[in-house]
């Protein structure tokens, strides 16, 4: 029994951001710089919530400020939330493989907001319906506009990749 989510409109459907579910904050690894803000959620009609909650917990533990949009989130909502919160990172996840269908529209939506030019874009989870391999999938999603693409990579490895990427970016900015 796992019906797709109920697409019923309601006053609660205004952008909702959860508080932290972490229970011990460790200091940001980016000493001296302000806390990084990350918007995350599961794209499309995808109710797979378990990894989303664990991601929330892990991001908090790693010192990020997390705005979790939860499951069944549409692409527009991600960008609206990124603008609203002034996010540094957008981390989209997908379990049922729907991301493939949404990926093509990423650039169009992002281009609507000038303020999103510096946004780090990451996508992870199971990025295709049926079988596929990372060698095909990663370049395809990079073309859609993602800086980091994690197809079937475990949570902590993915978040390590994010950290390395951000440090590199910070260094580039300080040199520029």
């Amino acid at each position, binding site marked *: 029994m796992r019906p797709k989510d109920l697409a019923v409109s309601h006053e*609660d459907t205004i952008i909702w951001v959860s508080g932290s*579910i972490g229970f011990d904050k*460790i200091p940001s690894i980016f000493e001296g710089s302000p806390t990084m803000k990350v918007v995350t959620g599961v794209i499309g009609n995808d109710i797979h919530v378990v990894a989303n909650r664990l991601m929330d*917990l892990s991001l908090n533990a790693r010192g990020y400020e997390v705005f979790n949009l939860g499951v069944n989130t549409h692409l527009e909502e991600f960008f609206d939330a990124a603008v609203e919160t002034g996010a540094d990172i957008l981390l989209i996840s997908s379990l049922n493989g729907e991301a493939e269908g949404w990926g093509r529209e990423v650039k169009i939506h992002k281009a609507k907001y000038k303020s999103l030019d510096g946004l780090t874009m990451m996508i992870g989870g199971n990025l295709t319906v049926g079988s596929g391999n990372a060698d095909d999938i990663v370049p395809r999603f990079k073309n859609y506009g993602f800086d980091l693409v994690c197809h079937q990579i475990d*949570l902590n490895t993915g978040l390590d990749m994010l950290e390395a990427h951000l440090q590199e970016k910070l260094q580039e900015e300080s040199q520029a």
Partner: protein
Amino acid sequence: MSQLQEEREIILGNENVDSFDFDEVREFVKGADEQLFISHHFDTKDKMLVQPRGGFPTYEKQFALYEFFVDANVDVLPLTIDSNTRLNDYTTAKKMLRLSEANEIDMLNGYPLVNHGYRSTRKMMTHFNHPVSLRHGTPDARLLIEIAIASGIFEIEGGPITYLLPYSKNFPLDKAFLYWKYVERVCADYSTLNKPINRESFGPLTATLVPPSITIVIQLLEMLLSLEEGVKSFSVSFAQQGSMIQDIVTGKVTRALAKHYAAQIGCEDAAIHLVYHQWMGAFPTNRDSADQLINMSTVIASMVGADKIITKTREEAVGIPTKEANAQTVANTQYTLNILGGLPAIVDEQEEEILTAEVHAIMEAVFNDPADTLWRKVFNSIKSGVIDVPFSPHIINHNEMITIRDAQKNIRIIKRGNVPIPDRCFEYEKSCCDLNKDTTSIVNDIIQDIGIMQ
């Protein structure tokens, strides 16, 4: 005309319903064979009733599935409803039913009961003359349960909390309470005509590290919401949790407190049953391992002393099970129940005492909410996080509670959020776990704890 009857006529005036004949349906329920009522089987049978899950789109395939189940000596037949019907999208369900009938491929993941209608479905139910349980997941099940009862389906699963928090992100919870109030009233009304209609709550919730205190509180509240509308037969339920002793303690505390709280609202006369779900979490893909897990669930259900067990299949990890695999589980479960004997009576007074104190504390907080009706108190308690379901996708859920397994695989609360777990109980729960780790290690533990059966 009563307000309920007015509402019923509006609901049944739906364009997908072929002229609902209220008087004829009442006469049918009044004269229905007692074998169709699960409440009758609970009253008269000593054995644990065995019920599988299953629903196919077409009449013929559902009929064939029931033939397999009856051959496997099933006690209770399931009718699982497709996901379009669960979302009240009868138009899509109708289209997909037509496509399923015209081709060999099933275009729906269950039986679209509203589209089939009660006149034809009743023929199937009275043909097999077994009790049937409606399995759905519908927040607004008003039309569905009308058609079900008119078809001879006299057990209705679900509830405003248990069919919403695990399945939906943003269906309004307040509306769900009102839609389910209608369901309770209609069930209560029909229950005066013959044997009672049984209502069953869906205890597994998200089936992901839900602690027994939360499960029991939600079971008790849905029971009370049902009994206060006049339902006379109710099943509380929970799913295998991963630790045998925790299951035994949960079963015992659930039964005792169900009786206690039913008596508090003057409903001692209602019959309360206990239902056990075989493991509802992530299943092993290896079919032989899955069979072993299913068998172990049956043994634990016997230790728990459940009145009914709901089965899984060896194909759980793969997809919708075939009728052959489904019937095989029924036969295997019956076999295990037959050969089990000399079960020891296991008691753990400390665990029982702690769990009972936790449930009482949460229930008290719910009752102390200043709202004027029980459903509003419950609604406010979920909104404020007094009730918090781990891994619920719903926006109203707090997600502040964190649970992990201890070395015995018991589910323990290590962060309580706004849930009023008494201090001494909370200290006990934490003392069972190794918490001298950083959060990343604990997250890794949680991932392991979710997948223990894989």
